């Protein structure tokens, strides 16, 4: 049982401040959908609007095709997992999990049965009598998931629930969350500022900045075909080269940058004379010179060995260095500090986007 969520021109204002600006989205039933953006971009506001804790200033939220206007959070087919989990500290694990059933008047016997089932699902069998404080971080996490699933929501909303866990556990919980979602088959809406989480778990991602949805697509598309400079710079590492388009055809555009004329894919159909930014990912660069309109040279500032790869930092035209990631098996000689190194890339891996706001470093 899952339901889609539609945002229909949703705007949320707090006084003068617009937290969410005209968001329109169609999240399909059974989808694992993520909102990705830096803190303060409005993603949590969207979540609270879907769960019913906030009313949109304008626009409509529909869940399963039904308008949610005037329906409170306790009457919506959604369940929310809070960033700090908000488990009830005075209740046992089983009481926490079945609280939603208790307020619906489900009998104690049925509740205990359901608690048993859910404890099995989250791999904590027989731990229902423990107090929440006796659990580890990852276990609490799973109890919060079970508590939300107990009320059989059609949509599960998750507000950065993994942010309090350490790295190893976080990576493990990603796989686990995804597996639980596949098993229960309901819509998951996931809020995160961690692109790794968004990319690994989601069917689709909405990248947000300053209350505006920048791009909605699957992870691969968001990474390879960013719509805006913000998406290109926020999702993954990227090297921006700002300049002016000197020549453009349907497929490629060449732009005049501080490092010479460079070429990249012209997805946005820019014309000669437009202000633009070329983005080339660190792993798209190769050491050595290539085609003249896809090669640049600069002074090596430093390099960092990271095991499977080595990052080489070259002096850029702006404050930001140019990062080049050299894979280990390439057998390349890493340029030493002060040495001028030439690097090139495949123009198909460079993206020319119209000039715009980038993510803060």
């Amino acid at each position, binding site marked *: 049982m899952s339901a889609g969520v539609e945002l229909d021109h949703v705007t949320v204002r707090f006084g003068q401040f617009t937290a969410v600006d005209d968001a329109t989205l169609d999240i399909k039933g059974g989808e694992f959908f993520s909102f990705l953006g830096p803190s303060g971009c409005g993603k949590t506001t969207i979540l609270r609007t879907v769960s019913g804790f906030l009313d949109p200033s304008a626009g409509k939220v529909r869940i399963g095709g039904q308008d949610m206007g005037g329906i409170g959070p*306790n*009457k919506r087919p959604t369940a929310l997992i*809070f960033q700090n989990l908000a488990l009830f500290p005075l209740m046992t694990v089983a009481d926490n999990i079945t609280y939603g059933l208790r*307020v619906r008047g489900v009998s104690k016997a049925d509740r205990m049965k359901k608690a048993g089932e859910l404890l099995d699902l989250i791999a904590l069998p027989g731990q229902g009598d423990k107090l929440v404080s006796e659990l580890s971080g990852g276990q609490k996490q799973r109890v919060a998931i079970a508590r939300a699933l107990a009320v059989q929501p059609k949509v599960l909303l998750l507000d950065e629930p993994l942010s309090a866990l350490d790295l190893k556990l976080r990576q493990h919980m990603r796989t686990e969350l995804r597996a639980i979602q596949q098993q229960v088959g309901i819509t998951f809406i996931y809020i995160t500022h961690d692109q790794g989480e968004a990319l690994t778990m989601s069917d689709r991602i909405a990248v947000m900045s300053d209350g505006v949805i920048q791009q909605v697509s699957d992870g691969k598309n968001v990474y390879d075909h960013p719509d805006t400079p913000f998406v290109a710079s926020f999702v993954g590492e990227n090297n921006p080269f700002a300049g002016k388009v000197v020549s453009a055809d349907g497929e490629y555009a060449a732009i005049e940058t501080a490092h010479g004329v460079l070429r990249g894919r012209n997805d946005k159909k820019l014309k000669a004379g437009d202000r633009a930014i070329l983005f080339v990912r660190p792993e798209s660069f190769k050491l050595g010179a290539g085609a003249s309109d896809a090669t640049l040279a600069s002074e090596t500032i430093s390099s960092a060995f990271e095991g499977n790869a080595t990052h080489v930092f070259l002096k850029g035209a702006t404050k930001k260095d140019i990062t080049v990631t050299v894979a280990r098996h390439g057998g390349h000689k890493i340029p030493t500090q002060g040495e001028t190194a030439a690097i090139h890339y495949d123009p198909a891996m460079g993206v020319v986007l119209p000039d715009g706001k980038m993510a803060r470093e």
Partner: protein
Amino acid sequence: MSSRLLVFLIPLVVIAIFWLMARSEKKLAHDPTHKSFFERNGMVLGITFIMLVAFWSLFLVVLPYLYMVVESFHPKLPPMQRGGPDDHLTLEQYKSFFFEPMDGSLNTTHMWAFVFSIFTSVVVTAFNFAICYPLAYYMAQAGSLQKVRIIMLALIVPYWVNEILRAFSLRLLLASKGLINQALLGTGLTEKPIDFLAIDVGLYVGLSYAYLLVMIFPLYNAIESLDKNQIEAARDLGAPWWKIHRDVVIPYAKPGIASGCTMVFMLAAGSLAAPQFLGGPSTLWFTSIVYDFFFQAFNWPRGAAYAFILLAACIAFVMLMLRLFKVSLGETIK
């Protein structure tokens, strides 16, 4: 030696205990570099500290009460005979609460006043809780900072008005020819004025008003530290507002509730001014009886005995309630 003077030996015992504690402190510390109390402070300062603590805890706190306890076990005697052959330990003061000393009949007047005082205090406590809980919840969780400040101010400022003024202005409101009766008569709601003071409305209002703050601050403190997400989580899981309070807020605030209720009950049961000014002509408040024994009859032993009966009953009642609601005493003073 009279048992009254025996009480004054206790300071010496306590000072000796403090001394021994200070001496043995070094042995208890497992850290070999740990300096003993006297090594740290020097002999002179060390002794001064011990004397000061002993003086404070004994002379200012414990001894006066102890003296009263001893007093309550003595007969009432003229000053000349105190310490004389008639001065002996006796339970007669406590017995006089249950049986009249004159004829041995049941002392229903005093026992009734006692029950009435306890009962009224319980009602006042419950009434105060009913008023303060929503207000404290609003202040702690719902209201904006600015509104909370205004409410705080509105709560505190009336307490600058002294008790007598407050009590008599309440009389002005509630008296037979008071403002409320005038209004009721004027609008034709009643034919005859209602004597609010005679039916103890004044007593209840006065007592509740007097201890409002004592209830609201422990509640506010307890609810304020509750994570808002807990409330939202319960709401999100489908709980209507009253179940959120029943299952999440009240269990969490229980120590604060217990603390506030205990204080209001104790203070109300032991209050003197409000019942005297606002009680009806036939209302007999227990502490008024105690007061009369001390200051009208000059019967200190009986007054002390009555006061201790009240204290013991209040403590027992509070303990019972704490047990009933599964709150430990330690939690209430957090």
